[in-house]
């Protein structure tokens, strides 16, 4: 087990948690500002009885809705961090086994699945999308030509 790997993973976990929380809060702040704008338009409409601004309010509400979905997707950092923690736990279990072997104790058996290669040292979404799309396309093309 490499000590640097464990520390690197833990460092990445704390960073991802911070980035994820910041992204979520920024999204919520944009949503709050959007709702405030809509309330302002509705108040004006109530006073002036001019319904012309309702279209703007509808557009702004749609933007708030879009923003809520984007904000929700920022919460994926939780799942990615769980995978990274499992990896650290697996490394620590290895170390535990090594120490147990020295004193003749049985091996520990982690009850979780560890990802081999975890995307997301940062939370940039769809980072590998083009590469993956290309692989899928190539595979499907090969299959249709009976190559695989």
């Amino acid at each position, binding site marked *: 087990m490499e000590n640097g790997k464990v520390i690197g993973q833990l460092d990445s976990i704390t960073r991802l948690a911070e980035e994820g929380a910041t992204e979520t809060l920024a999204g919520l702040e944009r949503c709050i500002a959007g709702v405030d704008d809509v309330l302002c338009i509705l108040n004006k409409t109530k006073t002036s009885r001019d319904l012309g601004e309702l279209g703007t309010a509808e557009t702004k509400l*749609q933007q708030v809705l*879009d923003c809520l*979905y*984007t904000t*929700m*997707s*920022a*919460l*994926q*950092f*939780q*799942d*990615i961090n*769980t*995978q990274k923690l*499992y990896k650290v736990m697996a490394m620590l279990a290895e170390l535990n086994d090594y120490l147990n072997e020295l004193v003749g104790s049985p091996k520990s058996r982690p*009850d*979780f*699945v*560890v*990802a*081999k*290669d*975890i*995307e*997301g040292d940062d*939370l*940039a*979404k*769809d*980072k*590998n*999308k083009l*590469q*993956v799309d290309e*692989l*899928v396309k190539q*595979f499907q093309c090969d299959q249709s030509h009976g190559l*695989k």
Partner: protein
Amino acid sequence: MKIMVVDDSMTTRRIIINCLHRLGFKEIVEAENGKKAFETLTQVGADLILTDWNMPEVSGLEFVQKVRSHDNLKKTPIIMITTNSSKEEVLEALRAGVNNYIVKPFTPETLKEKILSILPSSIQLTGLPRQ
């Protein structure tokens, strides 16, 4: 149209399910691992499966293999949504029979695009997230 969402992370399941609701899909079944997913699938069926890879008991890959070897289920479209991002893993999933692949973290637009890529063109999605 019934969609099955399989992921051991409740947060991710909720993110995906909310995106699906916005796309206009109302009938959604969910499972937290491949074992429960396969049991549910054999009982209620699904028109599309979105599955994670790294899950306890039965992994997403094993689940895909089980679905592909089941007479009544083998043609069900499957999209893998996972943190596994290496070329070897993508190819392993494709060889196991997934129709498309998404690496986490993903955007709602990517989910829409991948679903559209394998659904019959006759199906119209509503409430699409804006590009």
